[in-house]
């Protein structure tokens, strides 16, 4: 079992309240916290693009994605952009530019058709990418970031 020392440390008032504050107000605001939140309680469902085409975005070889995104909840959640990452076989990752060129507004839960999701990478490398949508959702007195998985390339494990 756990040693008496650890038990005493965990029972220390300062440590206890410090841990409580961190778990309620600190960790949910960090990046891993946002990913964990998005994994267990996502705002949008992962989507499979029905439209994938190469486009030239300001001289940069890019990909335009389109498809139906299912928004699961809305209350208290504000859209805050997308995040896209290019991965390699060793699980290194690098950010890739990504943006919705559709008019983004307040949308109700349900299906939303998006046709202009521009990813700053050529279509043949899209299979190595992962995409997320960022929202800020109400959490007690603060807003907490939620990073919902949106796309997973077919070449990733």
């Amino acid at each position, binding site marked *: 079992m*756990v040693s008496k020392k*650890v*038990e005493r*440390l*965990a*029972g220390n008032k300062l*440590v*206890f309240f*410090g*841990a*409580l504050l*961190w*778990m309620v107000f600190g*960790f949910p605001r*960090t*990046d*891993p*916290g946002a990913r964990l939140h998005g994994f267990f309680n996502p705002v949008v469902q992962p989507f499979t693009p029905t439209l994938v085409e190469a486009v030239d975005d300001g001289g940069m070889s890019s990909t335009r994605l389109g498809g139906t995104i299912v928004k699961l909840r809305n209350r208290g959640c504000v859209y805050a952009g997308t995040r896209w990452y290019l991965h390699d076989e060793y699980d290194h990752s690098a950010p890739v530019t990504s943006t919705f060129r559709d008019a983004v507004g307040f949308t109700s839960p349900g299906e939303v058709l998006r046709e202009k999701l521009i990813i700053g990478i050529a279509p043949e490398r899209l299979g190595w990418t992962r995409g997320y949508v960022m929202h800020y959702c109400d959490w007690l007195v603060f807003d907490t970031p939620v990073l919902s998985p949106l796309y997973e390339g077919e070449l990733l494990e």
Partner: protein
Amino acid sequence: MVRIRALSPKETNTLEDKITHGEPLSAVELAKVREMLQLQRDFEAYGRLGRLFLFFSAIGSAIWVAWEWFRGQ
């Protein structure tokens, strides 16, 4: 088994008075006291478990955040 939740405030006071004044307790009263003590022990054990769980969650999540931060540098 005597059910502790069935103890009224009056019964509790009577028990407390008897114990304070060193008066002998009946078998039923003794069983009630024993169950109360057991309940308290359980309560403390759950509290200890909860504090340990919170402690390790906090340490684990802090290590995760630090690891991600170093990886991103």
